[in-house]
């Protein structure tokens, strides 16, 4: 998030697009719902499902899956046409505006209606409410990113927020809601193939030199590969070994048959986890790790707030902290690591991580602090881009609309889209250990009342869902929240794994799979 959670009731309008907030980020949803009920913030929801947040919205619009660029371009078209754009902000803080203006010119409400299914009049109402708002925030989640046009979608959200001058101010911002406890931190720490900690670029001569000096070894200056690409290469026999820590790609990856085959072809697979996951079962070596309740350390949340965790209970048996395991391997490889506690690692990390440099365990205290925090006198940064973007001027990008990789057709006439439900988490490794959560949410497919009636499917009745990748049978959840022609399936459940059906089509830049759109067929089973 460019902005902080505390500031979310300081907006006049909040646009939620591609985020089922009350299911996936319930506590942020609670704050947004309260802000709406108190009359502080008007909410606009654009989502293929009529999500619960729509009940609190001033305007709700249902777009066809995979048409976000058209919708956002359409909003910008109307905002420019009516003169609601922030001319001063565009003039002083951005570049590339003319190209954007030219691109969105053709996205008339009628054209957008044809693509997205959102009535022209509704789009006009949305553009007016959003465009005229003194301060508007934008919230998104995987509904924006998990597309072959994920990068385009994200850039479009940034275009809209710059156009309206909503960047760098309290109550505004582009606010991706991150889905995992420390997914922000894993990225911040350089858990990505193209960057060192704090997004310092691999291959940049000064950065390479800095880290070689800091760690005292020669480093590769060749960017690595993303996980999705590595799986393809493993499938092709080009990868030899994977070391997987606390991840379960055998449930979370697209096209699971492909993922399974890829892992089988490896010469050596190490899995470090707290449970014998579907992925761990395929490993040659399994290393027992400790859970978050068993360790000291820090997580960085969706608003970039770094917070402390303290050890509450002991890890079972011989299970060790992940960092202890890494240290044992490092030392076996001849590196001389001597960490005795998490804080020492944090203190080393912040020396090479400029955005964390000013953070100490002592300063983090009860409330935690927002990065960037460049020095120990700095109070942290709840709102990014005030006065200036990190690259200087904000760059508008003209984004043409592209259709998803696989569209419904004669053989597979429904849209298939996936996501989470409130009561479960990711691949279920943690949440499914609580029987009560399983009683509340098991495998299912959400289907519209119209489609269910047409196919003679009753609530909780068995449905066969098929795509070009495979098929499975699960329970129907017939609901008015699902639009006709679209089915939704949560991906938490290995026994009815939505990702056996999803398509392994990637965004060309981010390499994120298109979990939110593919074509499927449904039948009464």
């Amino acid at each position: 998030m460019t902005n902080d959670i505390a500031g979310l009731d300081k907006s006049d309008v909040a646009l939620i697009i591609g985020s089922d907030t009350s299911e996936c980020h319930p506590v942020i949803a609670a704050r947004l719902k309260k802000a709406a009920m108190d009359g502080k913030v008007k909410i606009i929801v654009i989502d293929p499902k009529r999500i619960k947040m729509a009940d609190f919205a001033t305007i709700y619009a249902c777009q066809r899956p995979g048409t976000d660029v058209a919708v956002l371009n359409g909003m910008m078209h109307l905002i420019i046409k009516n003169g609601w754009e922030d001319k001063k902000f565009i003039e002083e803080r951005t570049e590339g505006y003319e190209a954007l203006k030219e691109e969105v010119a053709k996205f008339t409400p009628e054209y957008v209606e044809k693509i997205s299914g959102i009535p022209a009049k509704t789009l006009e109402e949305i553009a007016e409410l959003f465009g005229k708002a003194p301060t508007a925030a934008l919230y998104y989640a995987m509904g924006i990113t998990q597309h072959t046009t994920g990068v385009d979608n994200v850039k479009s959200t940034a275009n809209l927020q710059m156009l309206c001058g909503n960047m760098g101010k309290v109550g505004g911002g582009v606010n991706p809601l991150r889905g995992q406890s420390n997914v922000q931190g894993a990225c911040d720490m350089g858990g990505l193939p193209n960057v060192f900690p704090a997004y310092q670029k691999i291959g940049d001569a000064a950065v390479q030199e800095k880290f070689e000096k800091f760690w005292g070894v020669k480093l590769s200056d060749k960017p690595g590969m993303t996980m999705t690409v590595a799986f393809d290469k493993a499938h092709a026999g080009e990868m030899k070994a994977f070391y997987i820590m606390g991840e379960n790609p055998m449930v979370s990856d697209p096209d699971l048959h492909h993922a399974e085959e890829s892992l089988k072809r490896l010469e050596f697979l190490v899995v470090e986890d707290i449970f014998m996951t579907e992925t761990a079962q395929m490993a040659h070596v399994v290393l027992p790790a400790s859970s978050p309740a068993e360790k000291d350390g820090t997580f960085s949340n969706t608003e970039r707030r770094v917070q402390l965790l303290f050890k509450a209970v002991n890890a079972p048996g011989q299970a060790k902290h992940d960092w202890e395991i890494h240290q044992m391997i490092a030392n076996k490889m001849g590196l001389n690591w001597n960490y005795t506690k998490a804080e020492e690692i944090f203190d080393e990390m912040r020396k090479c991580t400029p955005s964390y440099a000013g953070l100490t365990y002592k300063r983090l205290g009860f409330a935690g602090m927002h990065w960037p925090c460049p020095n120990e006198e700095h109070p942290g940064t709840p709102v990014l881009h005030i006065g200036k973007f990190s690259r200087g001027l904000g760059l508008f990008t003209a984004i043409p609309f592209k259709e998803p990789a696989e569209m419904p057709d004669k053989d597979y006439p429904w849209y298939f889209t996936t996501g989470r439900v409130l009561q479960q988490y990711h691949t279920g490794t943690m949440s499914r250990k609580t029987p009560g959560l399983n009683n509340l949410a098991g495998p299912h497919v959400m289907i519209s009342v119209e489609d269910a009636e047409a196919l003679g499917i009753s609530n909780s009745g068995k449905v066969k869902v098929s795509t070009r990748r495979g098929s499975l049978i699960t329970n129907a959840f017939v609901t008015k929240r699902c639009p006709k022609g679209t089915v939704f399936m949560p991906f938490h459940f290995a026994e009815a794994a939505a990702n056996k059906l999803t398509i392994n089509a990637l965004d060309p830049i981010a390499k994120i799979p298109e979990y939110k759109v593919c074509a499927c067929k449904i039948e009464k089973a």
Partner: protein
Amino acid sequence: MQITINGKIVEAQAGQTIHRAAKAAGIYIPTLCYHEKVGAAGKCRVCVVEIEGSPALQTACSVEVREGMKIQTRTERVLNSQKLIVDLLLSTGTHDCLACDQNGSCELQDVAYYLGMERGSFKYADVESVKDDSSEFISVERSKCISCGRCVAACNNTVTNRVLDFKYRGHKADIAFDDDKPMGESSCVQCGECAQICPVGALTDKLSKGRARRWDVEKVYSVCPYCGVGCKLELHVDRKTDRIVRVTGAEGAPTNNGMLCVKGRYGYDFVGHPDRLTTPLIKENGKFREASWDEAITLVATKFAEIKQKHGADTIMGLCSAKVTNEENYTFQKLFRTGIGTNNIDHCARL
């Protein structure tokens, strides 16, 4: 400004209620309906005090301080009034403490203790225990409800789930889920905010029942292991059994201010689960066998070295984790970059 409480001069700030000023000065004024998060309701009347110059008793939770105010919290008149209220509450509910999960953090118990009362003295109707155990995670014991309204306010105004409300009037007044459904059949999402804010044993966490006495647990701060909001948790640990017996949201935390969702509050069984991995495992002939750390680590380091030598470091891929700490992601990528010599590191940020 300065005010006087029980003859003692106390510093107070304009806009502060008497209750808050007293609390800041370490003076206990009992409250049942008032909670910092949902504000003053002025319903229970148990916080009454005497103010010099004011003929009637005043509620400390709602009356703001004035310069020079003289307040008495323990006069006979105040205590008698409080005793009558608590007597009525004790007489109209099944306020049995022995096996109550709230025992030790019950605010009605605290007031009774403060006033020196064991049980109610009125006898005007038989009171039977009325339980609703239909919800997965929250027990409702209506006969312990004191109609303070905190849960109703929290459900509607804090977590904005709009499930709880009051039904009926007078002696029959009670909380209701939706249009008076059993809790488990209502639209409740079981975030547990009501159980966290309930002053008595009317709404309690089912999973914690009988697992540890309140005074036997130690609270440890952590961060929720689920989504990316980063709700601050208090893990209640029983040191004797080395187990988490309850999870609550940290009040005042900037991320969640005490709020949690059903997973964060009740999805902690995985921590001490019998299926946890407890020893390194090595696969031989398609089956896992237990191994020592030394054996497992040696095998991992040797295999990586071999593969690196034979096929190059870039044929090795590391997946770090969005579920482990910053420190551990740092050591993981450092191990890959400095030890193995590749930048093939990624995690499931995209998935």
